[in-house]
């Protein structure tokens, strides 16, 4: 694939060079090129148009070039508009170049308005539609990942529906939590449901000063998504499409040879139990005789399925398998998934009327290789934006959008919540085939992949959303006074149907069964959220006496949201094909439940901007906020912020050459914001109703004592200081923006002071916790162009780096007790995310060393050296076990009092929080060819896989789990003493108990770098396409997640490094890595505009 692309590029370059025309009669032209302020410009490219003759201006801005009197000179320079100047026989041409609207003049969307980037005083970052163009991803969130430093989006798996909560600048609160407020055209919304092609810009307000206009809705930043507006003039029709092939980025490689696997199963089982198993978990019978027979048959290739005559330790009549091997994990995926997106937009204006109309279809064919039950996904978006200029001073706009999506997710129906990956680990034994000789399904298969092969069990999720915003803009006094009012109504319905049906299988010849305890059922959840909001504000801006610029704004905001849902469950489906709950006949288990909640918030806000001579910039914000989520008396609060900027480079005394330092601005801000992004009713004593025991044949409902709530609760507050610097060098070819921040989240709503246990409930929560998060973001951008073969070659590199670290300042944990898990309970001075664990420098290599350690432990009054982690049923240690270091030298392994000061043999060995998140964005365009590459990654992050992370631990977790191929020959035996894994044992406590036994030896480094997106494309020359009436046609290749590297991959590539966070979110069931794979996409795209 890459080879082909490479070839194409070469061809293009060759053609371009070849096509250059010959020159005619010449004389020389010279001159000086300056900028608007008569400052000479060095490095300006001067080309005789249509030839390969070119030069660049010297340090004084002068140039000399050979050109005929009839030719045209083309002057181009980064940051300036390219100018064509006909020579017309002259020999001296001086030129004053016009500055392009540079980054500094860029308009940035801020809260309730826009601002020139040059005038920003807060920490605001913005990306434009470039981020979304040509991307094969399913939704906006997936495309935004990594695009803006410290906008942290944790996409945890590869499902097309997967989104993430929007986090800005790290840990927000360990109490009520809180993510960024996401506003779509000024109204709170879910970006996942948005058409990516509708987006004009995404602006991120990072510091408190910038976001404080949104008050308590935005203590942890704001993401402002603005959709495209109508273009003025003739209708422009634009169509774009992506045809996409996707494959899992990582395919786990497990041992699929049946005997090898079964043999390791036995070893792992025996080494822990010291007895023989009689089954391989539930679905296959086991005896040593069977294993011995299997060994012989494997050696001679005599595989097959028999019917038991009662020998081999199997029940008479039961199928007995001597299977060559089944790769259950490998059989569930298609080789490639086909996906496509189509987007059409029409935009233009006609007199007083303007319009933007768009529609998008995204379809995803489904990854699971199942004839009847694969996953598939569809998303449809439509938008109509119309504006009408009623009067010169009044314009109304209506912005209407509609969306629908549907995801069909097959699930298993054997155990747990239907997580296929987990079920494969539990029962997908390579030693069992999928089918019996008579065509029935085997027990192992029905427990694992059965529902995918001919089942009908699935989840279906449908979202429908209709939203309308009607807004009016009024302006008076030469547009100095403006009124804005908008009113939004949104109705969002979420529908989820779960259907699970019993799948037949056979354990005994001539006997078909279904998994006992299962019922065919349908459950339906219908949830309706109605939301309305209005924003009304008035602003006035003017300049007084030339140098005093003033802008003031006052506004009002009201929001209301109410949610209601209804859940129904019924079983005993009439047939397996039933699709409606009405045809479920029902047992006593049928159930109906509901949920309801409503919240309202009101805010009055004001903002003042003042600028003196464009040098000194000041902004003040205030907002008085009310929220129904607090109890009366605590519902209202006032929050304020201030920010200031100083454009040093505009000072008269700042005499540095503009070519060297073109811009220097210092910024600082401080703001304090309350947090109302909490769930409604958190402060009410409430009695929920749950299902209890069976009493006289009925499952009764019960309620019990409510969580104790104290009286004096108030808002959590985030106080943020931000210091920033904006710099431009070499006429802004190089720009640097850097921000450092310090956010104190105070009065966090956390557990109360430790109470003696007889209290009988967890200590009532209250505003007890403080935390400091410090971090920074830097983005460095280089943009330049030069002539290559007399055609402009423009390119840019943007690199970003972001980091944060949170430390707990105050927490109710006087003894500094640690949790038993690796995630310590919080305590003062703790760094959020720290992993407590043991130190291990290797494995025990001989019995003598163990005996010495055990003797020392006995001398210290202990029965065992490592009483915390028995690696078999006898608590014994064996050569090949992990050797933990006795850090506190007390003779045995312990957790001490499990406090920070007496942590036994544990210490901080790592941190789960990502650090040094970076990205590189490279792009270049030349002669209608464009290339862009986007790399993104994490510089430092640790992971200790949880106990259920069997995709890593394999049979060390449970003997009957899958065995990762990389473990073969990589575990300790007497002949292989420097293996990575310990002696081969199931239920291996340091792994089986997972993170509570975290240790340095098996701590994984999950930092990574990823080529998130690569695009290579070609704009068809306009002389070709204009003939058929088109304005622009481009074809391109675009790929997502094309390449990743992580230190983890030195060990295994079975799991994608960004896909380590727990379990499939919909079919929840514990276990790291039991997840939909991250997908690599290859797409061919086409854009047509006319």
């Amino acid at each position: 694939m890459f080879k082909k692309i490479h070839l194409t590029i070469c061809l293009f370059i060759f053609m371009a060079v070849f096509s250059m025309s010959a020159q005619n009669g010449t004389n020389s032209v010279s001159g000086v090129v300056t900028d608007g302020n008569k400052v000479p410009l060095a490095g300006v490219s001067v080309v005789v148009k249509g030839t390969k003759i070119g030069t660049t201006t010297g340090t004084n801005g002068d140039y000399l070039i050979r050109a005929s009197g009839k030719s045209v000179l083309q002057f181009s320079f980064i940051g300036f508009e390219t100018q064509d100047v006909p020579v017309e026989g002259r020999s001296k041409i001086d030129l004053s170049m016009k500055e392009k609207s540079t980054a500094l003049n860029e308009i940035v969307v801020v809260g309730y308005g826009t601002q020139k980037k040059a005038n920003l005083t807060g920490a605001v970052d913005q990306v434009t539609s470039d981020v979304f163009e040509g991307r094969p991803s399913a939704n906006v969130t997936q495309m935004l990942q990594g695009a803006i430093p410290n906008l942290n989006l944790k996409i945890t798996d590869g499902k097309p529906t997967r989104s993430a909560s929007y986090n800005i600048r790290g840990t927000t609160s360990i109490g009520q939590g809180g993510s960024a407020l996401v506003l779509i055209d000024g109204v709170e919304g879910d970006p996942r449901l948005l058409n990516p092609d509708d987006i004009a810009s995404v602006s991120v307000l990072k510091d408190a000063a910038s976001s404080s206009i949104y008050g308590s809705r935005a203590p942890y930043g704001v993401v402002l998504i603005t959709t495209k507006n109508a273009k003025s003039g003739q209708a422009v029709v634009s169509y774009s499409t992506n045809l996409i092939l996707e494959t899992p980025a990582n395919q786990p490689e497990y041992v699929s040879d049946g005997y090898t696997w079964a043999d390791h199963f036995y070893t792992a089982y025996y080494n822990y139990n010291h007895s023989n198993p009689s089954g391989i978990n539930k679905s296959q019978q086991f005896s040593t005789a069977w294993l011995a027979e299997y060994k012989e048959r494997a050696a001679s290739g005599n595989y097959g399925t028999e019917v038991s005559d009662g020998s081999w330790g199997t029940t008479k009549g039961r199928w007995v398998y001597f299977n060559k091997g089944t790769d259950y994990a490998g059989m569930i995926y298609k080789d490639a998934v086909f996906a496509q997106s189509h987007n059409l937009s029409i935009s233009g204006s006609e007199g007083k009327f303007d319009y933007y109309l768009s529609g998008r279809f995204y379809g995803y064919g489904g990854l699971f290789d199942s004839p009847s039950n694969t996953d598939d996904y569809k998303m449809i978006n439509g938008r109509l934006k119309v504006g009408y200029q009623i009067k010169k001073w009044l314009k109304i706009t209506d912005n209407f959008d509609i969306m629908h999506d549907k995801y069909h997710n097959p699930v298993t129906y054997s155990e747990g919540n239907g997580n296929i990956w987990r079920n494969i680990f539990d029962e997908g034994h390579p030693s069992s085939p999928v089918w019996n000789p008579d065509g029935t399904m085997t027990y192992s298969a029905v427990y694992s992949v059965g529902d995918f092969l001919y089942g009908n069990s699935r989840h279906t999720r449908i979202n429908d959303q209709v939203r309308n915003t009607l807004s009016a803009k009024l302006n008076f006094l030469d547009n100095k006074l403006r009124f804005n009012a908008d009113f939004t109504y949104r109705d969002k319905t979420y529908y989820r149907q779960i259907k699970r049906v019993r799948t037949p299988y056979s354990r005994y010849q001539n006997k078909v069964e279904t998994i006992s305890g299962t019922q065919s059922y349908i459950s339906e959840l219908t949830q309706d959220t109605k939301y309305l909001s209005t924003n009304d504000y008035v602003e006035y801006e003017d300049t007084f006496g030339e140098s005093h610029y003033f802008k003031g704004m006052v506004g009002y905001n009201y929001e209301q949201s109410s949610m209601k849902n209804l859940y129904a469950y019924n079983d005993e489906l009439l047939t397996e094909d039933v699709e409606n709950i009405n045809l479920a006949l029902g047992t006593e288990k049928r159930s109906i439940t509901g949920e309801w909640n409503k919240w309202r918030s009101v805010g009055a806000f004001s903002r003042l901007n003042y600028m003196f001579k464009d040098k000194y910039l000041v902004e003040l914000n205030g907002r008085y906020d009310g929220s129904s989520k607090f109890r009366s008396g605590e519902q209202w609060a006032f929050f304020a912020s201030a920010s200031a900027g100083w454009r040093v480079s505009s000072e008269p005394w700042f005499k540095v050459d503009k070519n060297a330092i073109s811009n220097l601005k210092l910024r600082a801000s401080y703001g304090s914001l309350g947090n109302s992004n909490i769930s409604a009713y958190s402060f009410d004593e409430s009695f929920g109703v749950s299902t209890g025991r069976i009493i006289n044949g009925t499952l009764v409902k019960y309620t019990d004592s409510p969580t104790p709530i104290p009286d004096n609760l108030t808002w959590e507050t985030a106080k943020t200081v931000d210091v920033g610097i904006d710099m431009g060098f070499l006429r802004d070819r190089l720009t640097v923006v850097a921000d450092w921040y310090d956010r104190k989240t105070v009065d966090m709503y956390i557990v109360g002071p430790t109470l003696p246990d007889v209290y009988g409930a967890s200590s009532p929560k209250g505003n007890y916790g403080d935390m400091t998060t410090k971090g920074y973001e830097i983005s460095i951008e280089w943009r330049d162009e030069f002539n290559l073969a007399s055609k402009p070659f423009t390119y840019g590199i943007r690199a970003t780096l972001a980091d944060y670290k949170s430390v707990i300042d105050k927490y109710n944990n006087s003894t500094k007790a640690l949790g038993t898990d690796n995630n310590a309970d919080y305590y003062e001075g703790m760094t959020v995310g720290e992993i407590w664990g043991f130190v291990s420098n290797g494995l025990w290599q001989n019995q003598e060393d163990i005996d010495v350690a055990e003797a020392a432990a006995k001398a210290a009054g202990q029965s065992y050296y490592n009483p915390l982690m028995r690696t078999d049923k006898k608590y014994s240690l064996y050569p090949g076990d992990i050797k933990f270091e006795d850090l506190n030298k007390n003779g045995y392994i312990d957790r001490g009092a499990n406090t920070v000061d007496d942590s036994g043999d544990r210490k901080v060995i790592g941190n789960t929080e990502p650090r040094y998140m970076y990205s590189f964005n490279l792009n270049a365009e030349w002669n209608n060819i464009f290339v862009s590459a986007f790399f993104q990654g994490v510089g430092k992050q640790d992971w200790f896989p949880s106990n259920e992370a069997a995709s890593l631990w394999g049979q060390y977790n449970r003997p009957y789990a899958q065995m990762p191929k990389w473990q073969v020959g990589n575990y300790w035996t007497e002949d292989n003493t420097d293996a990575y894994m310990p002696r081969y044992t199931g239920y291996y406590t340091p792994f089986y108990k997972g993170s509570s036994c975290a240790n340095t030896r098996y701590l994984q480094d999950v930092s990574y770098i990823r080529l998130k997106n690569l695009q290579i494309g070609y704009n068809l020359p306009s002389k070709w396409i204009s003939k058929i009436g088109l304005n622009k046609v481009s074809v391109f290749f675009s790929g997502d997640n094309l390449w990743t590297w992580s230190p983890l991959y030195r060990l295994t590539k079975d799991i994608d490094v960004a896909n380590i966070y727990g379990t499939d979110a919909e079919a929840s069931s514990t276990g790291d890595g039991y997840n939909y794979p991250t997908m690599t996409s290859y797409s061919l795209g086409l854009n047509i505009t006319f």
Partner: protein
Amino acid sequence: MKKILYIFSAALALAATAVSCDLTETQQSTADRAMIFGSETGLETYTNSFYNYLPSTGGGFQMDATSDYGAKNAIGTYESGAYTTETSTSWSWGSIRNVNYFLKYNTNTSISETVRNNYNGIARFFRAYLYYDKLVTYGEVPWIDRPLDTDSEELFAGRDTRDVIITHIIEDLDFAYNNITTSSVTGNSNAINKWTPLFLKSRVCLFEASWRKYHAGTDYVKNCTIKADELFRDAADAAETLMKDGPYKLRTSGTAFGGGRGPYRDLFVSDNTVTQEVMLAVSTDLTLDLGEQNWWYNSSTYGPHLCMSRAFAKTYLNNDGSLYNEKNADGKYKNFVEETAGRDQRLCQTIRGADYTRKNAEGDNERTAPNYSGHTLTGYQFTKYVLDDISFDDAATNYNDIPIFRFAEALLNYAEAKAELGTITDSDWQNTIGALRRRAGITGGDLDTKPTAVDTYLQKTFYPKVSDPVILEIRRDRAIELCLEGLRLDDLKRWNCGNLWEELPWTGVYIPALDTPLDMNGDGVKDVYVTKDKTYKGDYKGIAMFITGAQEIEKLSDDPNGGYILNYNMSRKWNDNMYLYPIPSQVIRKNEALSQNPGW
């Protein structure tokens, strides 16, 4: 400029009006306190939460997993003596708070006092139930009878004496007995009635009385002033009232034993609770909530393979009431068929005997020997809670209800309390132990009169300090009748016999020969091939029982034909401080007024 000011003022005024609006929203899908305590339905819904404190459908049948007579292949930290005050964490008070919260707020006078007191009675029954558990586990604990506030003094109180706790428990139970209005048997015995507190009172008082008697002179009773006899009398009185006035009686009719069922076994494998005898049960149900009794007692991977020890099996009498002798007249050890024939029927209704049959995959009843190669460690495989159909074995699929309180225990409590008081009569004996033995098919021996002879095997193996033949025989029947019902460890604790946990050998069945295919249950099918050769791959490899790991086999020197006995060794440990759990160190760190239990 003026205009602008006007407009700004107008806007501010508009904003200010917004401020005056009330933003209070109340939840509609959860209730508030007034709704719960303002109606009888509310009270009932609240008291339903207390039933969650009873053993669960997943745990009600494994409550004797730690008992001297039950061999198993996994030993917990406590059981192996590795427990420390730092590892100890289980000191939970949430359930007691939940009950106290109910008692505090159940005061709405729009509901009649009788009704309120009925529900208070239920609440106080459960408080007694929960405190009894605390008493057994920790001994002295603080008595808390109201939901505490964050500044309540009781938070930092020390431990109350056993006298205080037992007195309050009795008060609660008496209140419950006097105020609960239901006196008839409840549906499926799932709910409590006025007799349930009476039953619990006999259990609690018997425990506390024997604790005081058998731990006399130790630190365990140093603050006790209430005399043991007083509590034995309370236990006997409670049981006697229940026997006299209550609606329960022993189930004696039912299918005669033979097909694996009988009046005794029916109590544990019935779809619907046998409410005639079972006073409280947790229900499992085919559609609502499935149990996992079959899975736990038959799986090769799930559970610790709990099996009966031979040392205990020998205590079952012959069906003529005589003592069992493990040897035949010719000096040969009895084989499994001989051993399980002609015994107290409860033996073969508790474990798989030689005539045990199960429904196989084809649906036919088939003679089934204990599963030596996969499950059983000793050869005595429990069946008490197990449905005799293999199709229930692989997952949580059981529907049979699990008894929690059983009238038979009241008879045993009564007999023991009276015997300890020295006031037991022949008629008492006949109505209690005699009745239980009759139901078990015993036809002779001590059925109508108190026993007079000491069984030296029983005495020597289990209770060497007891010389009273009546008490010894009551203990024999208590262990047999209530086998696996969650009382054994508590009995050992109150009798000061904790050492049995460490010392009672976990012996297995008699194995006539090694490296020989054996038909254990006499149905002509070879059931097991016992071998020490781990690599054995001969004809009988399918039924091979490899002597591995913790299993040992011992050659019997006194068997003329050279048989063997299995012995299952695990690192059991009993230290004298283990009669009570320690108060967790982290609990004491939070309230230094709490003292630690003896020996920790």
